[in-house]
C-alpha cells in the first residue's frame, strides 16, 4: 500500500472527500463549514466541491443541529456534524447522550443512528475557560456512543472512515494542537482501523505510558528524554476510548509492571481515572508500583498564556510522574 505525507488537518479533509465520493448519503453539517471553509479550515473547498446540499452551513444552534442530524440518520443518511469546538457540544449533550445514543436501545433495535460528530477537543491557544474543554471523557462514559481520539494522521484517516461507515453515533475528537502534525498516510480508499484497537506508539520495557490524542506526542517526547537516562518507556496510544482495547494496555503493563495514564482533561474525574482504575484492578499482581496519573489542572482554563501552559500536561509533568514510580 502506498503512502503520502500529509497533515492531520488535510487528512481529515481528504478522508471526508473520499467518503462523500463513495457514498451519496454522507453529508456535512455545521457552523461556518461551507462558505467560510471551517474555522479550523478542515472543510476548506468542500462547499465549492459538493454544494450547499451536502455541505450545510447552519445557524449557531448546536442542539438543533445535532437533533436534525440524528433524525436524518434515523432514515439512513450519514451526517458528519462538525462542532466548531467540542466545547460547544455541551449545549447539545441532551440531544447526543439522551437521544442519539439511546435510539437503538429504546427502539428495541428497530432504528440506528449512523452519525459522526467531529471537532477539536481540548485547549487551543488562549481561548479561555469556555472554549477549552476536553469532552471525550464525558462521551466515553455514555453507553450507545462510540468515542475515538486519534493522535496521528494515519489513525485519523483509518478511524474516521470506520466512524463514517459505522451505524452507531460516533464521537470523533481531534485536538487543535494536532491539525498541523504531519505523518505518513496510506492512500488506500478503504483504509479503515477497527474501533477498540490500541496502538503501541513506542516500544519499551520499563514503564507503560497510556495516552490518547495529542498527549501521545507529549508522552513520546518524554520517552526520548527518559531514554537518555536509560529509562525505556513504552507508549500505548489508546486511540479508541469506547470501545477500549484493555487487552493491549494490560499486555503492556504485564511487560513493564508500571503504568502512568496521561490525559489533558481535568485530572479529577477524567477518563484517565477509568483507565487507571481498570489497570489497578485487573493488573494488580503485575504492578510493581501504583498506577500514576498525569492530567490537566483542576481549574477552568485561564486566558493568559503562562497560566494556560501551567494547566496543560507537558513532557516535564510526564517525566516527573514516571520518575516518581521508577
Amino acid at each position, binding site marked *: 500500500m502506498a503512502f503520502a505525507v500529509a497533515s492531520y488537518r488535510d487528512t481529515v479533509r481528504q478522508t471526508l472527500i473520499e467518503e462523500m465520493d463513495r457514498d451519496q448519503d454522507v*453529508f456535512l453539517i455545521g457552523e461556518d463549514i461551507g462558505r467560510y471553509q471551517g474555522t479550523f479550515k478542515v472543510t476548506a473547498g468542500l462547499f465549492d466541491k459538493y454544494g450547499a*446540499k451536502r455541505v450545510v452551513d*447552519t*445557524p449557531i*444552534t448546536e*442542539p*438543533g*443541529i*445535532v*437533533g*436534525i*442530524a*440524528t*433524525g*436524518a*440518520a*434515523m*432514515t*439512513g*443518511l450519514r451526517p458528519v456534524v462538525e462542532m466548531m469546538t467540542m466545547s460547544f457540544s455541551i449545549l447539545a449533550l*441532551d*440531544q447526543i447522550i*439522551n*437521544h442519539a445514543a439511546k435510539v*437503538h*436501545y*429504546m*427502539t*428495541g*433495535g*428497530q*432504528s*440506528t443512528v449512523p452519525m459522526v460528530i467531529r471537532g477539536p477537543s481540548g485547549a487551543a491557544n488562549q481561548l479561555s475557560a469556555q472554549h477549552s474543554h476536553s469532552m471525550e471523557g464525558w462521551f466515553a462514559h455514555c*453507553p*450507545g456512543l*462510540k468515542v475515538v481520539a486519534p493522535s496521528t494522521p494515519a489513525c485519523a484517516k483509518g478511524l474516521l472512515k470506520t466512524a463514517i461507515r*459505522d*451505524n*452507531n453515533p460516533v464521537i470523533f475528537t481531534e485536538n487543535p494542537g494536532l491539525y498541523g502534525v504531519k505523518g505518513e498516510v496510506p492512500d488506500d480508499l478503504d483504509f479503515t482501523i477497527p*474501533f477498540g484497537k490500541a496502538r503501541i506508539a513506542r516500544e519499551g520495557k520499563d514503564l507503560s505510558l497510556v495516552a490518547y490524542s495529542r498527549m501521545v506526542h507529549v508522552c513520546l517526547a518524554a520517552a526520548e528524554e527518559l531514554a537518555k537516562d536509560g529509562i525505556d518507556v513504552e507508549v500505548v496510544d489508546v486511540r479508541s476510548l469506547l*470501545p477500549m482495547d484493555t487487552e493491549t494496555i494490560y499486555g503492556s503493563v504485564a511487560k513493564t509492571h508500571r503504568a502512568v495514564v496521561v490525559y489533558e482533561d481535568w485530572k479529577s474525574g477524567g477518563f484517565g481515572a477509568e483507565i487507571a482504575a481498570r489497570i489497578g484492578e485487573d493488573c494488580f499482581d503485575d504492578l510493581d508500583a501504583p498506577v500514576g496519573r498525569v492530567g490537566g489542572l483542576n481549574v477552568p482554563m485561564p486566558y493568559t498564556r503562562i497560566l494556560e501552559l501551567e494547566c496543560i500536561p507537558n513532557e516535564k509533568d510526564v517525566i516527573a510522574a514516571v520518575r516518581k514510580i521508577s
Partner: protein
Amino acid sequence: MAKQAEKHLAASPAELETYYREMLYIRHFEEKCNFAYRQGKAGGYLHVYIGMEPLAVGWLNSIRKGYDHVITAYRDHGHALLLGSDPVAVMAEIMGRSGGLSRGKGGSMHLYDIDKGFYGGWGIVGGHVAMGAGLAFSAKYREEDRVVLCYLGDGASNAGVWFETLNMCGLWDLPIVFIIENNEFAMGTRLEYHAADTELWKRGLPFDIKSERIDGMDVLQQKVDAQRIIDYVRKEQKPYLVEVMTYRFAGHGAADNDRQLYRTKEEEEHAMLRDPIKLLEKYLIQHNVMNHEKMEAIEEEILKEVDRIYDEADASPFPDLPEVYDNVYSDMSVEEGH
C-alpha cells in the same frame, strides 16, 4: 333520505364510521392501559390521549400511511395504533414484555414502529422536535415528497431547541407540520403560567412559517384542516405550524391523581361537554349515519377487542435477563456485569 343526508355529510358514511371506531378504539384501549397501570402490570410514566383523540384520527387519516413520517412525545399510544402497529405489541410494550414494539425496553413513552413510519415516542419535553425536522431534512435531501408530522405539547412549545428547529425549518423549507397539542396544561402548570402569550400559533411568525390555530374537538373539521395543511406542505415544500385547541381530560399521567391542585371539577365538566366522541355521536345521529343501537354494537365489539389485546399481551413473556445487553449498539456487544 339517507342519500339526501349524504350530500351534506362532511365525509362518506364509511369514513365517518372509521373515525368513530378509531376514536372509540383509542379511548377504550387507553382506559385499559390505565387499568393495567392500576393492576401493576404497567409502571413508570403512562400518559393517555383521552379527550385528544381527534389529533390522532384527524391527522393520521390525512397522511400517506407508511410513507409519511410521524413523531411525537410520550403521549403516543393512539399514534402507534392508527399507524398500524400490532395492538398486542403496543400493549405488550406498555406491560414491558419481550414481544413489545420496543422489546420491553421503551415502555408507554417510547413506542416506535419505524417500518410504519412512526418515529416515537420520546420522553424529554421538546427533545424530539429537532429529530422531526431531521426526518423532513432527509425527505428533502432524497427529493421525496414525504411529509413529516411532528406533535408537541403546549409546554414543549417553550423549549429552546424547538425555536432553533423552527428557524432551520423556515430557513431550509423543510416539509414538516408542527402540531401543538394545546391541552391547556403542562403537567400541573396551566398555560397562563408557562407561556408569555397563550396564542401559541404565533410562535411560527418570526420564522416566516405559515401558522394558525384550529379547534381540536370536532374531528370532522380537524380532518378537513389537516388534509388542507398536509396537502399544502407536500405541494409547497414548506413548513407549517398548527396550534390545536384541545383539553387533557385525564391527569397528566396515570400517577397524577390530584387534578384539583391545578383545576376545578367545574372546569373539567365544562370541557367534557365537548368530548370529541360525544360530538361525533351527536353528528352521526343528526345526520342519520348511525343510530344508538349501531353505536352500542360497535362499542361492544371494541371492548371485546381491547380485552383480547390485553389478555394476549398479558399472556406474553417478559424479556430474558441477558436481553438487557442487547441493542446498545447495532454491531457490538457491551462489557457485562457490575
